Every structure is written in structure tokens, then in C-alpha cells.
């Protein structure tokens, strides 16, 4: 069993190293094959673990690999922790990861740096697996930074494009702010508990602290700051829309399905600690709801197809945090799973369009594409309906569960925010679908003739994801029995609050409201964009620019920092830093020139120096 874990974890790393070092030797076909095969084998490993788990009633287990940092007070070991939660995440990562690897073969076909792309993608899979399997918070942090690095490398894959390079830097820098919080929280954990083992921490925390202890609240909040950066929650959401400069499969894998959910995973993984700090949970719920609404509003006015999906991702991540904030960790994980299916589907379907239109993502120049993308349009439509929350597609069940839990927990305002967001979601997905695929085409004639449907290596994985998006909701819904996902995750202790193991779908007023609202929103959006599109002006600028938050940050932080930096480059750097270095160099040179005079080549002068030296030596020894 340990071997299966290790194989599944390290095979993508081996593949990454191999592809990096042998990128010039092996051909493109083999490169794609190796990259896909390593992730597929990894998926098989974790699937077999799942089979063992469900069939043998195995308990969560810690695998000790080796002493990593044997310093007293830190004492971090390389341990892997396997429980249903980690297993669920690994299956999502490797399963969707494999489909996206396969899709990438078609998407990245014409690029020069074929091997670099797949190597980075494999490295991402490894880092993400390390993150979810880590039994130690420090090891988890290593994976956390690893996925950040992979994200940086892949967003900046087209590094010669200034926008992509800038977006990569922005993603990296904004994530550092969150990571700063994570790191402080990590140090606090070591200070308080003397260990970073997650199981130790969660077991001992209840004995050490009362509910609402300030120190613990601070620690959990700082962990959440890290999650904020990684999962693009307010106020650190600015990097995710820009990260869409990367290749679309990367957006699907990293910036929709897996990496951005790491923050949610962290909160769920530490839920025993979070339950002791109601204040932090309250903050999480508020920030989650605010982000969900904010991003949904922004998505209404985007003209770039991928940015619509990016804001939608931020919005859905807000839902997950809202669920965690009200203590419904299971609902959050359920939503994470269904969202991974649906959003990967939407991104890949959008990727078909983007790829075949040679990188154009602007919906102003699309429209009427249903004639060309006769397969992709249906796939995108399935994703759009699923995301809008129409039963019985995947998101419906998870979103409904979240809204229900929020309502039960008694947060009226947050519930209505969530409800409004779900209606907005239906609206902007309909808008995106209509602007892209329906209506009159705004393409130029000569482009229409060239563009065609994506090849089957790209539509295949998307179809698989579409199937998952349709049936994925039934992971959390079973007729009159405990849903499979809930019974699976029950061992982790994140069943529904109140210890009632019946996350089954109940037809309530909330369900009715959200479903009817979504249907109305779809009808409204369809009517507006089919009949009154001419009368609509340009999208609201304030929404399109995401409430000018980027500009505000520029004004408050970026420009002052740039000003300080320019002062330093102009005054301090040439005089102090460079000046001192140059002075050292010149001084050395001058001394050398002076000493050089002694090397005259005159033998007699050497003898004279020798004689003087000996005379001095004799004098020294005599007295």
C-alpha cells in the first residue's frame, strides 16, 4: 500500500525530471505519451487505494518516510497521511489531471516548447499531490509553494508575451502575500504545539485550548490568509483573472479544478482546529459570501470568455468558503468536487474555441459559432447549465446543499447573498454562451472559412468531463440512503453538523427559490441578448474593471513601491552599493599594480631582496 502511494506521488516527479533533461532527445509523440502515462499510472495507484479503502474498512493511516528536519522545536518529518479526504483530492487531481494532459496534446501541438509544457504540468501534479498527501504542515507548505511555482511557470508559458510574463509575476507576488500569513501561522503552530504533524495538532488542540482562544483564533486566521491568496478570495483575488494569460488547459487544471481549491482543502483538513475558533469561521463565511457576490457581478460584464470563467471560479470558491465558514465542511468538499468537473469542462470547451480561433478570447468577435463548433457548443452548454444550478446536473446538488446549510445555520444575510449569486451565475453563464455560440456571427468572412471543430483528442476528454458533470451530483445524492461521498468522507469527521448523516437532497423552499431564480435568470438573459442586444451599450465599466480594485491597488501599493524603488536605483544603488563594490575592485587593482613593480625580472634585485630578508630573519632570531 505504501508502494502504491509512493509510486503515485513520485512518478509525475520522475516524469518531470526525465522530460526536463531529455527534452531535446525524445520526440513530441513520446513526450506526450510519457507525460500522460505517468499521470494515468498515478491515477490507477490512487484508484486501487480507493478500492482497498472501501473494501477493507481501513482506518486513516500515517506513513513515515524519513526524518526530514530533526531539529528540536521544529522536528518536521516527511510523513504522508492517507485518509478519505486526501484520497478524494488525489483522485480529482490525477483523474482530471490525466484528462487535461490528454487534451493538452492537441492544444499545445503547434508550440515550440512541447516538452517544457508537459514537464511543468507533471511537476504541478507532483506538487499538488504532495500538498494533499502531506501529513506535516511544513511538508504541506512545500507542496503549497510547489504548486505556486508550477502556476508561475505555466501562466508565463508564453514568456515572450509581455502580458503573460506580467500576469505570472503578479500571480506569484500576490500569492506571496498570502503565503506570508501561512508562514507566520506555521511558525505559531510550531511554537504552540512543538510539531507540525496535522494529526497531532488536531488531536491535542481541544485539550490545550478553550473555544475562541485568541492565540488559536490568530493562528487559524493566518492560515486562512494563506488560503485567501491561493484560492483568490477578497482582497487577494486580483491575480486569478490575469492568470488567464496562460494556456487554457492550464487554466482548467490549475486555476479552476485543483490548485485554487488548495485553500479550501487546507481549511477542511484543519477543521478540528477551525471549529474551536468561531470568530475565524465567521470571517471565512463573510469573506466567502462577499467574494462570491463580488466575482459574480464582475463576471456579468466581462467581454473576454476566459475572464468570465475566471470570475466564475472565484465566485464558486467563495461558495466553498461560505460552506466552510458555517461549519458545513462536507458541503464545501462536495462543491469542490462537482465544481472541479464542471469548471474543467467549461474551460476545456472554451479552450476548443480559443485554440481553433488561434488564441482569440474576446467575445466581441465571436457569436454564431454553433455552426462551426457543433460538438463543442453542446459540451459548453452542458457546463453552463450545470454551473447555473439546474437539476439534475452536478452543481445543483452541491450548491443547494450549501445554501440549505447556510440557511440552517441561521445566517440570513449570507443566505440571500448566496441565493443572489446563484441567480447571477445563471445569468452570466447564459450571456457567455449566447455571445459565443448563438446570435449573429461577428467574425470576419475569411476567418469563418478557416476555423473548424477541434480534433477528437481535444473533444474526447471534454466529453468525459461532460459526462462527469452530468452524473457527478449523484455522488452526493442517493435515493433514501446515505450518499456515497458523505459516507466516504464521514470517517474524516466532516459529516453534516448535528450528526445527522442525511445529506440527502430534501426539497425545500431554498431549493425552489434558487432553481426558479436560475431558470428566470436564464430566460431573462436569453431574451435580453437575443432581442435587445442592440440597445445594450458597452458593459458597465465599473463591473468590467472589477470595481477598479486593480487600479486602487496600483495607487495604494504598487506605485508608491515603484517610486521608492526608483529612488533607490537613482540614489542609493549607484553610490552605496555599486560604489562600494567598485571601490573594492579599484583598490585591489591598485595594490596589485604597486606590488607588481617588485617583479622586475632582474635576478640581482631578487637576490638583494633575499639577502635583506635573510638579514632581517637573522636579526629576528638573534634577538
Amino acid at each position, binding site marked *: 500500500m505504501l508502494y502504491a502511494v509512493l509510486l503515485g506521488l513520485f512518478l509525475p516527479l520522475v516524469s518531470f525530471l526525465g522530460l526536463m533533461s531529455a527534452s531535446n532527445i525524445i520526440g513530441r509523440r513520446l513526450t506526450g505519451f510519457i507525460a500522460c502515462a505517468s499521470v494515468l499510472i498515478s491515477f490507477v495507484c490512487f484508484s486501487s487505494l480507493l478500492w482497498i479503502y472501501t473494501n477493507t474498512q481501513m482506518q486513516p493511516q500515517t506513513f513515515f518516510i524519513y526524518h526530514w528536519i530533526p531539529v528540536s522545536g521544529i522536528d518536521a518529518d516527511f510523513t504522508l497521511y492517507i485518509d478519505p479526504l486526501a484520497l478524494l483530492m488525489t483522485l480529482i487531481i490525477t483523474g482530471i489531471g490525466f484528462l487535461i494532459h490528454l487534451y493538452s496534446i492537441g492544444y499545445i501541438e503547434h508550440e515550440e516548447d512541447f516538452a517544457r509544457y508537459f514537464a511543468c504540468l507533471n511537476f504541478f501534479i507532483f506538487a499538488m499531490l504532495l500538498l494533499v498527501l502531506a501529513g506535516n504542515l511544513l511538508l504541506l507548505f512545500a507542496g503549497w509553494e510547489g504548486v505556486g511555482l508550477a502556476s508561475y511557470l505555466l501562466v508565463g508559458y508564453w514568456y515572450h508575451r509581455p502580458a503573460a510574463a506580467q500576469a505570472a509575476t503578479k500571480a506569484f507576488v500576490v500569492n506571496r502575500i498570502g503565503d506570508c500569513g501561512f508562514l507566520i501561522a506555521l511558525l505559531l503552530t510550531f511554537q504552540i504545539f512543538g510539531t507540525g504533524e496535522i494529526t497531532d495538532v488536531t488531536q491535542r488542540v481541544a485539550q490545550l485550548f478553550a473555544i475562541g482562544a485568541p492565540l488559536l483564533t490568530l493562528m487559524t486566521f493566518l492560515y486562512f490568509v494563506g488560503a485567501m491568496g491561493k484560492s483568490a478570495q477578497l482582497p487577494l483575488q486580483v491575480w486569478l483573472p490575469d492568470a488567464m494569460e496562460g494556456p487554457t488547459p492550464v487554466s482548467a487544471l490549475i486555476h479552476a479544478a485543483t490548485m485554487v481549491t488548495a485553500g479550501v482543502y487546507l481549511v477542511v483538513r484543519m477543521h478540528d482546529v477551525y471549529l474551536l475558533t468561531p470568530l475565524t469561521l465567521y470571517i471565512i463565511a463573510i469573506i466567502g459570501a462577499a467574494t462570491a457576490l463580488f466575482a459574480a457581478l464582475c463576471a456579468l460584464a466581462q467581454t473576454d470568455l476566459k475572464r468570465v470563467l475566471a470570475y466564475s471560479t472565484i465566485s464558486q470558491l467563495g461558495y466553498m468558503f461560505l460552506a466552510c465558514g458555517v461549519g458545513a465542511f462536507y458541503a464545501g468538499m462536495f462543491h469542490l468536487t462537482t465544481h472541479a468537473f464542471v469548471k474543467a469542462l467549461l474551460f476545456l470547451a472554451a479552450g476548443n474555441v480559443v485554440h481553433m480561433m488561434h488564441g482569440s478570447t474576446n467575445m466581441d468577435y465571436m457569436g454564431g459559432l454553433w455552426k462551426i463548433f457543433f460538438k463543442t457548443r453542446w459540451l459548453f452548454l452542458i457546463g453552463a447549465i450545470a454551473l447555473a444550478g439546474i437539476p439534475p446536473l452536478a452543481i445543483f446538488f452541491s450548491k443547494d446543499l450549501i445554501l440549505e446549510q447556510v440557511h440552517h445555520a441561521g445566517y440570513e444575510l449570507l443566505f440571500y447573498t448566496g441565493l443572489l449569486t446563484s441567480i447571477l451565475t445563471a445569468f452570466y453563464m447564459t450571456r457567455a454562451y449566447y455571445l459565443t455560440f448563438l446570435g449573429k456571427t461577428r467574425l470576419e468572412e475569411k476567418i469563418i472559412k478557416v476555423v473548424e471543430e477541434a480534433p477528437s483528442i481535444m473533444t474526447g476528454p471534454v466529453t468525459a468531463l461532460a459526462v462527469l458533470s452530468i452524473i457527478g451530483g449523484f455522488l452526493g445524492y442517493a435515493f433514501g440512503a446515505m450518499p456515497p461521498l458523505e459516507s466516504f468522507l464521514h470517517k474524516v469527521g466532516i459529516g453534516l453538523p448535528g450528526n445527522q448523516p442525511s445529506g440527502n437532497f430534501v426539497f425545500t423552499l431554498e431549493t425552489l427559490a434558487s432553481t426558479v431564480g436560475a431558470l428566470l435568470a436564464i430566460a431573462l438573459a436569453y431574451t435580453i441578448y437575443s432581442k435587445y442586444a442592440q440597445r445594450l451599450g458597452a458593459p458597465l465599466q465599473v463591473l468590467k474593471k472589477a470595481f477598479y480594485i486593480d487600479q486602487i491597488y496600483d495607487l495604494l501599493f504598487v506605485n508608491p513601491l515603484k517610486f521608492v524603488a526608483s529612488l533607490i536605483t537613482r540614489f542609493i544603488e549607484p553610490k552605496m552599493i555599486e560604489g562600494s563594490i567598485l571601490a573594492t575592485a579599484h583598490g585591489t587593482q591598485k595594490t596589485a599594480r604597486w606590488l*607588481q613593480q*617588485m*617583479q*622586475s*625580472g*632582474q*635576478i*640581482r634585485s631578487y*637576490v*638583494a631582496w633575499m*639577502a635583506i630578508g635573510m638579514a632581517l630573519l637573522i636579526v629576528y632570531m638573534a634577538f
Partner: protein
Amino acid sequence: MDILFFIYISMAMFAVGVIGVLVKRNALIFFLSIELMLNAANLLFVAFARQWGNETGLVWVFFVLVVAAAEAAVGLALIINLFRSKQIVDVDQYNVLKG
């Protein structure tokens, strides 16, 4: 005879050798001066061996003589070759090792 006498003679010989090396520019005289210094040391060895009745000093003298002979052969060959290439015996002109 007084040991002091030999010490003075040896010191004088050595000083003459050093001054020869420092002052003379002819390579052959330069070379002779070096031999003079070696023999000043030899003289002292012999004198002290006699004074203390210890043969170790005598053995050392033979070593020095053998080495000096070998050195004379090599040194003279070097000087002849230098002279052939430069047509000069002035050591000040042999300054290609200048830094």
C-alpha cells in the same frame, strides 16, 4: 688553530660571494660568486667537524661538493644556451620573467 679564525675567513668568503652576486653583471662571475658562497659554508663545516671530532660535517661537505658539481654542469649549460640565444652574458638583460 683557533676556530674563530676559520669563522672569520668563512664569513669573508660568504660576504665576497654575496657582494659578487649583487654587484657583478657578468653571468660567469655571478656563477663563480655562488660557488664561493657554497665553499664558504663548506669551510665552516670542515672547521667545526674538526673542532668537535664529529664526522657528520665531513659527510655534508661531500654532499655539497657533489651537488655543486651537478649544479655547475647544469648552470654552465644554461649560461651557454642563454649566450647562444641572446649573444649577451649580462644577467640584467635576462629579464623576460618581468611581471
